[in-house]
């Protein structure tokens, strides 16, 4: 594996009294896709902005491609591509004009520039749209354009901030294929998302909550770690069972899927299938439990619930609601 593309230690950012990013440690390997998974307000965008040198950290340090940010942001920018969460190209310019412009400000010479723009237009299937204004494109088309624009100068590192929000599944799949091709070509990608299926495609993942990394690792390993903790309960009275199980300290989360309940047991609960069946019998509720395959969603619930419950226990000393205002 290539050496780390990004190393961050204790990276923090406050906006007034709101802590958006809280002591983040990161090791992003090179030539891989690294994912930030987290709900809105968990500090994904703020972290990316700090790593680009757009925001100064309140404390902590980060090195990106060997440049410390924000001090060395300028030389870093030549090797950095950034696809913002919101479409940030010029809606009143055409697709090819936008690409030309980005190539120009990145300092490409005239001849290489038009060759590069043509190449990108071909790669990202923008040929038919080349003379259309960016403001008239569909979500998927805009996304392809934004990706192409972030790539004009062949950056070594690509930041993608929720690149697929508002994009249909077909376009998303296509988009990810393009990302893997880039990685094969040697690009490092850091992508933030709140889609589980996307997060699962990353080589490595950090789950963010309230500006902290609450879990990180390879998706498969994270999922397998929960292999024997997921139980599915089939019952006629799902809401009663749900209520019953949610009260228990050794149950992390309960989610309903049609007539079934998906239960994530805490690590402390031994033989969860038997334990849950016992609990149902004691309460006199009919229902059958069986082991189920764990998913990334379970990983997410487990990782974020630990902190939620932890905070609930020491009410008063906790920092309270946070990071909702920071984007």
């Amino acid at each position, binding site marked *: 594996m290539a050496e780390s593309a990004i190393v961050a230690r204790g990276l923090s950012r406050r906006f007034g009294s709101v802590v958006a990013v809280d002591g983040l440690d990161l090791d992003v390997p090179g030539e891989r896709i690294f994912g930030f998974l987290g709900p809105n307000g968990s500090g994904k965008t703020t972290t990316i*902005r700090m790593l*680009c*040198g*757009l*925001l*100064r950290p309140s404390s902590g340090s980060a090195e990106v491609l060997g440049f410390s940010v*924000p001090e060395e*942001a*300028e030389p870093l*920018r*030549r090797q*950095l591509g*950034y696809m*913002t969460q*919101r*479409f*940030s*190209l*010029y*809606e*009143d*310019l055409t697709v090819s*004009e936008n690409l030309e*412009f*980005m190539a*120009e*400000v*990145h*300092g*490409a*010479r005239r001849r290489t520039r038009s060759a590069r723009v043509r190449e990108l237009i071909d790669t990202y299937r923008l040929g038919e749209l080349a003379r259309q*204004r960016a403001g008239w494109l569909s979500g998927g088309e805009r996304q392809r354009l934004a990706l192409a*624009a972030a790539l004009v100068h062949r950056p070594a590192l690509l930041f993608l901030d929720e690149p697929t929000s508002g994009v249909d599944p077909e376009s998303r799949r296509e988009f990810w294929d393009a990302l893997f091709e880039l990685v094969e070509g040697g690009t490092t990608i850091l992508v933030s998302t709140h889609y589980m299926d996307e997060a699962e495609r990353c080589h490595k993942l950090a789950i963010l909550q309230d500006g902290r990394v609450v879990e990180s690792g390879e998706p498969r390993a994270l999922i397998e770690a929960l292999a024997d903790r997921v139980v599915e309960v089939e019952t006629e009275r799902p809401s009663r069972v749900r209520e019953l199980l949610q009260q228990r300290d050794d149950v992390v989360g309960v989610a309903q899927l049609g007539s079934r309940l998906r239960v994530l047991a805490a690590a402390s609960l031994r033989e969860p299938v038997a334990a849950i069946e016992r609990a149902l019998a004691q309460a006199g509720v009919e229902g059958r439990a069986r082991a189920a395959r764990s998913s990334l969603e379970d990983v997410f619930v487990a990782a974020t619930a630990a902190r939620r419950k932890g905070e609930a226990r020491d009410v008063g000393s906790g920092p309270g609601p946070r990071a909702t205002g920071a984007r």
Partner: protein
Amino acid sequence: MSAGHRIGAIARKEVRQLRRDRLTFGMIAGVPVLQLLLFGYAIDQDVRNLPAGVADLARTSASRRLLAEVEASQVLDVKVQVGSAEELEQLMRRGAISVGVVVPVDFERRVARGEGPPAQLLVDASDPLYLAAARGLLELPLGRRSESRFDRRSGVPSTAASSPVAAFAIRPYYNPERRTEVYIVPGLIGVILTMTMVLFTAVAIVRERERGNLELLITTPVRTPELMLGKLIPYVAIGLVQTTLVLIVGSVLFQVPLRGSLLDLYLGALVFICATLSLGLLISTAAATQFQAFQLTFFTFLPQMLLSGFMFPFDAMPRAARWIGEVLPLTHFLRVVRGILLRGAGLGELGGDLWPLGLFTAAVLGLTLLRFRKRLD
């Protein structure tokens, strides 16, 4: 790759966007022409055609002649003839007339005696300009009239045959040098540039921030001064186009003279355009939305309109107002442009008003660069 390259890229992009932004594009030509017509025609400080009523109680040939002269002056537009001063007062209260002319029954006797003004003007003085106009009408021309037209010694009014209009020409009052358009149009170059240049630049940058373009742009190698220069260059050109437009329309419609050198005028305008653009940039660093940019622009626009000597004679303003006025770029540009257009002055003679413009530009640009960071915080 060179900075000039990136500046050029931004400037070309800006022009492309401008060409597609029909509203802004229309404003480039629309604002100057509209303002020119408004200020040139509507806001005419030579008050004419005031609605007037006449009460000719004397009904003699002399009184009729007087009224004919008054009407010929075009200051008054006689709407009604009534039989008493009271009726005129009523009309004025209703707003039907602004001026009433009362010629008393003993008009000729009064003229003959030569004691004070023989006739009376009732003036709605709520607008001081009306009063000034009426005063001009009566005191100047009529004062002379009594000198030349009525022979004091004989006390006999001279006949129409012996006193042609020429003797009472109102000409001195409306002499060409006192036409307001001639004075206002050069100033309008400054006012129009102030309004459009500040607004365009402020909005041009704030719009990028508002639409999120700036977040992308500042992750590219573009440096702050490059970004600013690239954005400004198209507007410098637009400012010069506007100057040209005002000059052409001003000379065609209002016969505004160009007594100095055209090159001097454009150089002066260039310095002033830089000053206004830098102000626009400064505003863009303070405004978060285009709406705020509009508000801030008007906040800087009003004092310039009022304190620069455009609306009121600069030297007649209170001292504190003049101090503020000296800081404003428009004040200095008004002097420059009036000097060149009306007095035929050269740039060399106007140095005293050029360096404050340069200083203003440098100070404001410096402040802008300090405030504008290639960061979001």
